[in-house]
C-alpha cells in the first residue's frame, strides 16, 4: 500500500534541481484518547478564558505576550507574528554537504523519505551520488509556514530528509558540569566494566515490542465487550547497599545465567 506524500519540493544546489515528494518515515501507533465530560460522555472542547472575568476569548481575538524575567509583558499581535513568518517556497536549499554522520543524532527530529516527483533521472543520480560519496547534505526549507533545517542522507537505499532541531532547542552537553565526588575506586570501575561486557549483545530493534500499548488495546477491547477490568496499587522497590558489594553479586549472577 503506497503512502501519501505530505509535501512536494525541489532540491536545489549549484544548478542541480531534483523534484521530490516527502513521506513520513514514522508511523504513529499511539492509542489516542479523547477527553469526555463524565456525565454525558460528550467530547469536551477547549476554549481560552480570561481568568479574571471568566470570559471566553475567541482565538482570532487573542494576542501573544513574551514575559521577561522581571515579569513585564511584551505584546505581539497576530498580524505582526504572521509578518515574521518565513516566505512560502517549494525550494529545499542545500547549504552544503558533509561527511556521512557529521550531523550528530542529537539534532535529529523527524525522518521523511524522499520519492521522485515526476521525472526520476535526477532523483536516482542523487541517490547514487550520496551513497557512493558517503556524504549527507544540510538542507533548509519552509513547510507549512515553518522554517526547517534537515539532513539529506541515504537510508536503506533511498534518499531521506531528517528534520533537525534548531540550535537554540538543544541543550548542549558541553555546557553542563558532570556530577562531582571523591575519585572512583579502580576495582569497582573494573567490576562495572566487566558487568557491561557480560551483558553485551547485538542491537536488535525487532526484539522489542510496545507491550504496554498492546495491553491497553486488549483492555479497551475487553471493556468494549462489557467486561470489567482490574486495577492495582503501584509497588515500591527495595534499595541496595554498598555499590562494590552489589557489583560483585551482580557479576556472580550474570556468570551463572551466562
Amino acid at each position: 500500500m503506497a503512502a501519501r506524500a505530505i509535501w512536494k519540493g525541489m532540491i536545489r544546489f549549484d544548478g542541480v534541481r531534483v523534484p521530490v515528494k516527502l513521506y513520513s518515515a514514522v508511523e504513529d501507533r499511539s492509542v489516542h484518547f479523547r477527553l469526555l465530560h463524565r456525565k454525558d460522555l460528550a467530547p469536551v472542547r477547549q476554549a481560552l478564558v480570561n481568568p479574571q472575568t471568566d470570559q471566553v476569548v475567541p482565538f482570532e481575538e487573542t494576542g501573544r505576550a513574551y514575559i521577561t524575567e522581571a515579569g513585564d509583558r511584551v505584546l505581539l499581535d497576530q498580524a505582526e507574528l504572521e509578518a515574521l513568518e518565513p516566505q512560502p517556497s517549494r525550494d529545499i536549499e542545500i547549504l552544503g554537504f558533509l561527511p556521512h554522520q557529521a550531523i550528530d543524532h542529537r539534532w535529529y527530529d523527524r525522518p521523511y523519505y524522499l520519492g521522485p516527483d515526476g521525472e526520476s533521472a535526477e532523483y536516482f543520480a542523487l541517490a547514487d551520488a550520496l551513497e557512493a560519496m558517503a556524504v549527507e547534505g544540510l538542507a533548509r526549507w519552509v513547510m507549512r509556514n515553518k522554517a526547517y533545517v534537515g539532513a539529506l542522507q541515504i537510508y536503506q537505499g533511498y534518499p531521506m530528509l531528517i528534520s533537525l532541531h534548531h540550535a537554540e532547542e538543544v541543550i548542549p552537553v558541553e555546557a553542563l558540569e558532570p556530577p562531582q565526588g571523591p575519585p572512583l575506586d579502580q576495582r569497582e570501575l573494573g567490576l562495572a566494566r566487566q558487568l557491561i561486557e557480560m551483558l553485551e549483545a547485538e542491537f536488535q530493534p525487532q526484539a522489542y515490542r510496545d507491550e504496554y500499548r498492546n495491553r491497553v488495546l486488549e483492555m479497551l477491547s475487553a471493556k468494549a465487550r462489557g467486561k470489567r477490568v482490574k486495577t492495582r496499587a503501584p509497588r515500591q522497590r527495595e534499595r541496595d547497599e554498598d555499590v562494590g558489594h552489589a557489583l560483585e553479586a551482580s557479576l556472580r549472577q550474570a556468570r551463572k545465567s551466562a
Partner: protein
Amino acid sequence: MGRDDDEQLADEEQPHAFWSGIIAFGLVSLPVSLFPAHRGHLPLKMVDASGTPLKRQFFCGKENRPLERDELVRGYELEKERYVVVEDEELEALEPEKSREIDLKRFVPLAAINPIYFERAYFLVPDGDTTKAYRLLAKSMEDEQKAGIATFVMRGREYLVAIIAEGGILRAETLRFYDELRPPEAIGLPERQPADKKRLQRMRAAIRKSTRKQLDRAQLDDPQTRSLMQRIEKKLKSGKDVLPAPEEPEAAEAESNVIDLMQVLKERLQGRQVQGSRPEPAKKQAGGRLPALRKRSTRELYEQAQKLAIPGRSKMTREELIEAIARAGK
C-alpha cells in the same frame, strides 16, 4: 500512547522532571530524574486584547459550560461518537510491575544503533544523597563506548530507551519501536535504478563543490526566532506594547516562566535542589509544605499522588491533590 488533548491538564512551563525512578544496573540501583534535553521555541503566552494571560478551559460539548478536572474522563472512540471510558487506575494497572525502574540488562555498542531510531533525549540527574553509582556507571559506559538498552513506562507510554554516557553525564534517549519506522517498501517508492552516467558525474561534481568538513552550528539557527527576538527587544527598548509586571506577587509568580531549564540542570547535576523542579516526598510539616506543593505542576502532583497511592486521585482537583499529598506526608 498519547494522552492527546488532556496533555493540557498539566500544562505548566516550569522545567521539571518528566520521570523519577531507579536505574538498575545488576544489583546496583541509582535513583535518577529525567529532564528534557530539548526546550521549545521562544515561549509566548496567549493573551487577550488588554494583555491578560489566558488560561485554557475545557467545556462540555453538549451543555456548553466550563468543566472542572474531576468532571473529565478519558474516552477511546470505538466508532463515531461511541466511546469506551477508561479510568486512570485501569491504565496504571497495565503498567509493568517495576514501572519506576529502567533495568539495564543489555548493553550494545553505541555505534550499532542506527541514528534514525533516536526520538527524544533526556538528561539523567542523580537523586539521593550520593553520586557514586551514577559516576561509576557513566565512566564505565563511556570507557566501553556502550549504550544500555531497556524499556520503561513514562507518562502513559512505553518507551524503548538507550542510556548513553557522554562527558560524565548520562542521557536517556528514547528510541522508536521497530514497527514505528516504515520500511521503504511501505511507502511505495520506485525500485532503485542505476543512474545515467553523465547525470551522475554532474551530480558528483556539484556535490564535491559544496562539500565541507564540519557542521557549522550557526546554520542551525532559526531565522524566525531571531527576528522575533529582535522585535521583542525593540519593543522593550521603546517601551511600546510593554506592560509592567503585575503588582500582586502571587499573580506574577503564576505568570513568570523564567526558571531556565539549563539552570535547573546545572544545579541538579551538582546535587542542588531548585525549588519546584522535582517531585519529592512530602515532609513532616504538612502546613509548611503547601506553598512548595503549589509551585508544582498538576502533572507532578498527580505523579506524586500516584507514588503515594492516594485513592481517588484521578478525580481530584489540583487543590485537592495538594491537600491529599500534604496529608499523606504527615
